[in-house]
Each structure stands twice: as structure tokens, then as C-alpha cells.
């Protein structure tokens, strides 16, 4: 048998959850916040390449890589990161 306490709890859960869910519908129309994923993506790419350079230096220092491979890969990564930084700057200027 359902007692008064149970009924009260069920009522509170139902009214509370429905009220909480539908509340935004009664507000003013909201515009979708600006998409910042593009800039975030560029920054992430920059972080990943920097980390790769750091790991490459470590691999070289501990002797996992010879000098030719190290220099070749390092220059490639540096060129790549330079492009990303350029894009970040132009994105920030546009903003």
C-alpha cells in the first residue's frame, strides 16, 4: 500500500523533474553560442606537434634515433607547427 510519504515523494519527483526540464522553453529565444571548436582544434594541433617534438628530442637523446632521422623529422614538425601558428594568428585577427 502506498502511504502519504510515498505519494508526497512521487509528487515532488514528478513536479520537480517536469518543471526543471520544461523551464528553458518558457524563456526568451536563445541564440546558439558561437562555435569555438575551430580555434580549439588549431590549439590542440599545436599542442600535439609540440609534444611530438619533445618526444622526438627525447628519443634522440636516449639514442633511439640517429641524427639524420632526428633532423629530418624535427624540421618537418617545425614546418607543420609554423603553419598551425599562422592559422591561429589569422583566426584571432578575424575575431
Amino acid at each position: 500500500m502506498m502511504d502519504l510519504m510515498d505519494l508526497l515523494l512521487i509528487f515532488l519527483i514528478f513536479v520537480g523533474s517536469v518543471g526543471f526540464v520544461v523551464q528553458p522553453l518558457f524563456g526568451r529565444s536563445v541564440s546558439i553560442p558561437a562555435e569555438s571548436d575551430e580555434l580549439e582544434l588549431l590549439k590542440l594541433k599545436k599542442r600535439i606537434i609540440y609534444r611530438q617534438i619533445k618526444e622526438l628530442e627525447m628519443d634522440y637523446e636516449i639514442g633511439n634515433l640517429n641524427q639524420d632521422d632526428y633532423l629530418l623529422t624535427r624540421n618537418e614538425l617545425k614546418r607543420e607547427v609554423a603553419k598551425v601558428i599562422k592559422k591561429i594568428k589569422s583566426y584571432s585577427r578575424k575575431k
Partner: protein
Amino acid sequence: MPVVGSVALNLGLGFSILTILILVFYLHTKDYRLYLTGQRSALGVSVLAIIATLVLINELLRGNFDVDYVAHYTSLETPLLFKFSALWAGQSGSLLFWLSILSVYSLIVIFLYRNRHRKLMPWILIVLTSVQLFFYTLINFITNPFEPTSADFVVANGNGLNPLLQNVTMALHPPTLYLGFVGFSIPFAFAIAALITKETNPLWIRSIRRWSLVTWLFLSIGIILGGWWAYQELGWGGYWAWDPVENASFMPWLTATAFIHSIMIQEKKNMLRVWNMVLIILTFGLSVFGTFLTRSGVLSSVHSFAESPLGPMFIYFVILILVVSTALIIRRLPLLKSRKRLESFTSRESGFLFNNVVFIVICFAVFWGTIFPIISEAVRGTKITVGPPFFNQVTVPIGLFLLFLTGVGPLLAWRRTSKQGFIKNFTIPTIAALIGLIVFLYLGFTGYVLVAQTLIVFVIVAILLEFYRGINARRRRFGENPAQALLRMIRKNRSRYGGYIVHLGIVFMFVGFVGGAFNQEKEFSLKPGESEQLGEYNFQLKNLREEERLNHYAWIADLRATDTHNKFITILHPEKRVYFFRSPDPDRRQAHSELDIYKGIIKDIYSVFTGIEVDKNTAYFKIMINPLVWWVWLGGYVLVFGALISLWPARRMI
């Protein structure tokens, strides 16, 4: 109070349908208020599941035997901890527990990414809510934990929890396993959302990498705890029996391990994007399949599976996951294809790719061995079980190759390893392995044991060499002392060295697995004062005691172990227990052997009190000498430690 739980489940079901509809509507109208409503509705779905779980916990702790589930899995005598753990002891409770963990994860996702992944989030919420809807449907319509008892009398006491489950490890094992199983829903939801929205950039990969590692860690801990429980509680002397329930957790672990390796390549090189999608989907599919295996009754008989709609619903759900995901991958194939190719066969990328293939091959073998009895019973009417010999025959050689790759991986450079680099990196581990091989041959080892031991030496030396070189490099560059260099090196490269420590843990586990080849076992009976010999040990029954405890009656043996020189080693206290001993119905009384283990680095002495003849004052024992088992648990600790290092957040330098 149970009615509150039931209503919460009904409401949760309604809200989950509502959430999906609102979010789909939002995707058509782009009215952001609808997204906020959908997000709140998703919050509601999760909160309601948690409320229902809390209500069931309350009923279990109170011992409300009017609820059928409570009466089935607890009794007045059940200790408080096990009343709580009864939440996941039965089918309906464990499904509610699955749902509540997913709900906690969903709440974290909603909170963490409330301002990020704007394109992905509506779809992530739709996928997560769809999974919740599936579990809500099962719990509401097929197996409701709040179902009142069908007895037409007042139920004064419950059945109580199975004595085998009344163990602290068993109280921890299912939650950790479920945290792992359920956690893979999040990478899955991200993957599906990325496929639908065509957002296949590395941003979402970044977000799920940590999730994957955390859930992988939980799953690993769950599997290790399961082994620990089996070893301590079941009394057959082992920790892994290739039981379908064990395999159910091992399969997603294999694909998840492959994934956390290959995701690194996607992050660094933007390669293996299709493969990673396949791995995420497989891992989640196998997690749901694992829940189906353990919860549908299909393992005991195909017929019991058909008796309840639960099993078919799980199967339909797994098929739905696979069909929808595969269709999405095929549709997005042009977008997912990587323009980059592997530059060299001798690169770390290739090493990762090899390890991925090996993981998948092992997973397929385990999958086939697990479902074969089910298929044979369904097709031919007779259950043909493939036991440990099949699994060992297939997985041991592949596992050894995987062990070899564990050692080779760190020695290979990204992109390509030059000939000089190859010779330089491989020389010392290879020489060490060859010396090991000669020593092991001299000691008389043969076959897989010999190969495994040689590879163990190779991998340990390869990993330690990486640490040594790293420390030396820092000492040269910064003039640090070795301890400083070690700590700073790990701190600055947590992911890399944490990973190596995890590998070291796996190698230690292999040391333990090798020990299994030298187990000794003997069964005998003793009267007080008598003794028996096994290997280099002597066991004397000093005393046989009796004790009445809260929920069982116990006979306790005091078994004195000495070595061949009569040097005292330990006194073991295995017990023979009878649970529900007060029950007037003899069929309800349940005998249980509580074993005692003397643990050592070199070997364990494992004692089981198998039976007693009270009138003859005779006790029956099974004693096992299990070498190197300690290393399996040490490997587990090291694995967890390494994974925690990898997970520890680094201060962002850039």
C-alpha cells in the same frame, strides 16, 4: 517506499523517450531552447535512475522482504556490506546498477562538455539516452527489482546471499567491472556522434582518450579482482579458468587495449581512423554482449535463454549497435580514410599495428571458444564445451608473441628505425635473452615455459634499458642525480613511462602464469595429530575446532606446515562452513569451504578443507603448492600504478 523506486523507473523511461524526441526536434529547428530542454531531460533520465538505485539500496539495507529481489538476495543474517552488494547479485538489480553507473557517467559528460563539442553533444546525448532507454525498458517491463513478492504470506526472512558472494573482493569486483563495461558507452557515443556529424577531427579523440584509459583501468582492476576472488574463494587453486563469464570481461578488455594503443597513432599521425572507429564499436558491442552472456541465462542453457525475453532483447540490441555503426562507418569511409601511410615496417606505428592485430586475433579466438557451446547446443541440441585446453592452445602462442611485441615496441622509433638504431637498441635485450635462454635450458626448462621465460628477460631488459637511457640523457643534460632524473623524466613524460610501467606489470603477470606449469596438488584425510607430505612440505593436523557464527557454522582446522628439515613455516586455518545451518529444511543448508593460503614470492601453499566426518573426527583436505602466483597480483598493482601515472593530469606547458 519501493513504489517510489518503481515510479522513478517509469518516469525515467518516459523522460528518455522525451529526451530523444526533443533533441531530434532541436536538430531540425536549431532552437537552442530545445537543446537546453533536451539536456535537462537527459539530466532527469540519469537522476531518476540514481534515485531508483538509492531506493533499492534502502530496501536491501532495511531488509524489506515484501520486495521479491530483497527476499531473494538478503536475509536477516546477511552482514550489512553484503546486503549492499546484493544490489548487483541478481539480474534485475545488476541491470539497474548498470543503468545507474551509465547515468553517473552521463551526468559527468553533460557537466564536462556543457560548453564544448557543440555539434557533437546533441548526438552524444541521443546515443547515451538510447542506451539508457534500452536498460529502462528491460527493467520496467522484463525484470523489475521492485516487483513485490508473490508469496501469499508474510515473508519473515529472505533467502540470503550465496556464501560464495559473501566476500569483500566479490563486493568490489562487479562494481569495478561494471565501471569498465559501462564506461565504454562514452567513447562509443562520441564515435557515433562524430560519424553522424562528420566531425572526424582530433578534438573528440582527445576527449575520449582519457575516458578510455580510465574505463580500461576499471575493467583491468575488475578482471584482476575477479581472478583474486576465484583464487581465494572457489577452492580449485587457480585464478583464471576461461569461464564464459571471465571471457565476457576479457574480450572488451582486449579490444580496448588495442584501442588505447592505436588511438595514439590517430592523435599523432591522424592515421588508423577507420580502425579506431571499429575498435570503439567492437569494445562497446562486446561490453553489452558480455552483460548479455552473464545476465541472460544463455550460459546455463539455450533453452533458459529462450524462456525470457531478456536474452533476445540483448541480442537485438547488439545487432542494432553493430548494423547502425557499420552502416555509418561505410557511409563515412571517404572522410575517414587517411592520406598518410606507414613509412616503414620497422617503426613504432607498425609495432602498434601488429599488437592491434594480435589483440583482435586473441579476442576472436576467445569469442569463438565462448559462443561455441551455445551455437552447438542451438544447432545440434548437444552442448559441446571447449575448456581451458582449447583456450590455452590458441592463446598461449599468440600471447607470447604479444609479450615479444611488448618488448620490441619501446625499442622502435616513430616513423622509422634506422639500421644502426635497430642494432643499437636490440643488442643488449637480445644478448640478455640469449643468456637467459642458456640458463633456463641448463635448468631443464622446455617448451612454452622456456620461450616465455626467455621473452620475459628480453622485455624486462628492454623496458629497463629505456628507463636507464632516459635517466642518463637527463643526467647529461641537466646534471641531475639518478633519483631526480628518474622522477622528473616520468613527470615530464607521464604517458610514455606510465605505459612502460603498465607493460612491466603485464610482464610480472606472465611470470606468474609461467609458475602455473609447476603446480602440485594432493588430496588426503587426517585425524588430529596425523600428518601428510606434499613436495617439500609436511602438513600436520594439530587441532579441529568448531564455532557458531552469525550466519554460519564452522569447523576450523589448525594445519601445521613444516619443510623437509622440520622447520616451521606456518599454521593454516582452512574452514568447512555450513550456511543457513539454523534452517529446519536440510536442503537449504549450504556447505562452503573457506580456504587459507600462505602467500610467498616463490610459492603459495593453498589449503582447502574439503569435507569432514564428524563421527570419525576426520577432516579431508586438498593442498596445492602454487609457484609464483604472488607475481600475478604484483603485476596487477604495477599495472594500476602505471595506468595512474599515465592518467595523472600534467600541467599544460604550452
